[in-house]
C-alpha cells in the first residue's frame, strides 16, 4: 500500500471528529426540541431521524447521492452557486458519517433531557435565571452524562462508517480512504499484513472509545 497508515488514520480521525462535533450540536438541539416541545407528528420526526440506524448504509448512501450528488437538488445548487462539490471529498465523508451516526446521539440526548426533573428548571426560573441560563446551568449539567455517552458512541460509529461513506466519498487513498475502507481494499488486494495492522488499530481505537463512554456515563457531579 502506497499511502502511509498514519495518513489514513489521521483522515479517519478528522472525519470522525467533525462528524462528532456536528452531531454534538445537532443532537443536543434536536434532542432538546423533541424532549420539550409537544407537537403533532413528534414521534414521526423521531422515527425518520432514527432511520439511518436501521436502513442499510448503502441505502443511506444512495439517498445522500440523490441529495448532494452532482444532479441532486442540493448538490446541483452548491455546484452552480459556489462551485462546491461534496462527492468524492472528505467533506462528503463527514456528511455520510454524521447522518449515519446521528440517531445514536439523538436517542441519548432526548432521553437525558427527558430525565431532567422539571422542578429544577422551574426553581432556576423563580431564582431569576433567563431561559439560556436555565439551559446551561441546570439542564445541560443534569443531562450531560447521557449526552456524552451518546457523543462517544457517535465517535466510535463514525470511525467505523463504511457503506454510505464509500458510496458518497469513494476510496481515494490519502483523500477519502478511511480506515474501514482501507481494510476492505487491503483484503481485496490480498495484502494480509496491511489488513491485520489496520484491523488492530481500528479495534484498539474503538475499544478505548467505548471504555471512555462506559466510564463517563454514570459520572456524578460533573459540575
Amino acid at each position, binding site marked *: 500500500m502506497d499511502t502511509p497508515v498514519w495518513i489514513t488514520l489521521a483522515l479517519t480521525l478528522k472525519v470522525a471528529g467533525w462528524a462528532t462535533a456536528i452531531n454534538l450540536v445537532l443532537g443536543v438541539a434536536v434532542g432538546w426540541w423533541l424532549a420539550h416541545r409537544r407537537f403533532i407528528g413528534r414521534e414521526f420526526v423521531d422515527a425518520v431521524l432514527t432511520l439511518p440506524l436501521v436502513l442499510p448504509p448503502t441505502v443511506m448512501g444512495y439517498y445522500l447521492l440523490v441529495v448532494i450528488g452532482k444532479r441532486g437538488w442540493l448538490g446541483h445548487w452548491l455546484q452552480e452557486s459556489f462551485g462546491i462539490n461534496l462527492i468524492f471529498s472528505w467533506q462528503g465523508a463527514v456528511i455520510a458519517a454524521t447522518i449515519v451516526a446521528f440517531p445514536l446521539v439523538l436517542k441519548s440526548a432526548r432521553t437525558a433531557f427527558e430525565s431532567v*426533573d422539571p*422542578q*429544577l428548571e*422551574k*426553581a*432556576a*426560573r*423563580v*431564582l*431569576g*435565571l*433567563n431561559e*439560556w*441560563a436555565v439551559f*446551561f*446551568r*441546570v439542564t445541560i*449539567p*443534569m443531562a450531560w452524562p447521557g449526552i456524552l455517552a451518546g457523543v462517544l458512541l457517535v465517535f466510535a460509529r463514525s470511525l467505523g462508517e463504511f457503506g454510505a461513506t464509500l458510496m458518497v466519498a469513494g476510496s481515494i487513498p490519502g483523500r477519502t480512504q478511511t480506515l474501514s475502507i482501507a481494510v476492505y481494499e487491503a483484503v481485496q488486494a490480498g495484502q494480509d499484513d496491511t489488513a491485520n495492522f489496520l484491523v488492530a488499530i481500528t479495534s484498539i481505537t474503538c475499544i478505548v472509545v467505548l471504555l471512555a463512554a462506559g466510564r463517563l456515563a454514570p459520572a*456524578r*457531579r*460533573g*459540575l
Partner: protein
Amino acid sequence: MMGFEIDIHKTVRSERRSFELHVRFQTHARRSVIFGPSGAGKSLTLQAIAGLLTPDNGRIVFDREILFDRRAGIDVPARQRGFGYLFQDYALFPRLNVRQNIAFGLQHGLRNPSAKVSLEAVDYWLGAFDLQEIAAQHPDELSGGQRQRTALARALVHSPRALLLDEPFSALDPELRERTRAELDELLQRIDIPVLMITHDPEDLAWFGDEALYLRDGQISERPPTPVRRISTRLKVVV
C-alpha cells in the same frame, strides 16, 4: 396594602382527563393558606402566581402590580416576579453544594457559582439557618430539615417580596414536621413579607392560616370542609 388579587382560569388536559381550574380570591393577610385535598389544583394555582404556569385567562395582581393580565397582554416572566418559592421536595440542585445552591440566583450569566463562592448575603443566611457546618455538602448528604432550611435560604437570599410555600412539611417525617413548623413560624415572624402557603394538612392551616382559602375541584369554596371546621374554628373564610 400588600396582597394578592387572583382571578385565573386554566384547563389542564392529560391523556385521561381534563381539569378545570377557576380560582378567584383576594388576600391581604400576612400569612394566607390555601387548603385543599390533593388534586384540587393547589399546585397549579401557586405555580400560576409564580409565573411557572400560564393561565388561559384572567388576572394576577400583587401589591397593585399586574403580573398577568390576559386581556392586556401582560405576563411578567417568573424570573422578574420577585417571589421566593419553596418547592414541595425543595428542588435543590443535586450537583451543587449548599453554599452554591443558596448563591445560585445571585450569580448572573451562564455559569454556576463556584464551590467556595463568598457573598455577604449567602454567609448571612448560612449563619441564620445554622448551615455553616454543612455548607460544602451536597443535597443527598443532608437531612430533611437541613434540605428545607437550605431551600428556604435560597429563596430568601434574594429578599423576595413574598414567599410562596408548596406543602413545606410534607417531605418531612412527623416528628420533624412538628419542630420545623415551629421554626418556620418563628422565622416568618422575623421576616416581614407576605406568605402564601398551599397545604392539605389541617395542622398547617391552624399554624399559618391568618387567612384561609379552601380549594376544591379547582374552585375556591366558601365553606371549609368538615374535618377542618372542627379544628379551626378561629379561622375565618375569605372569598
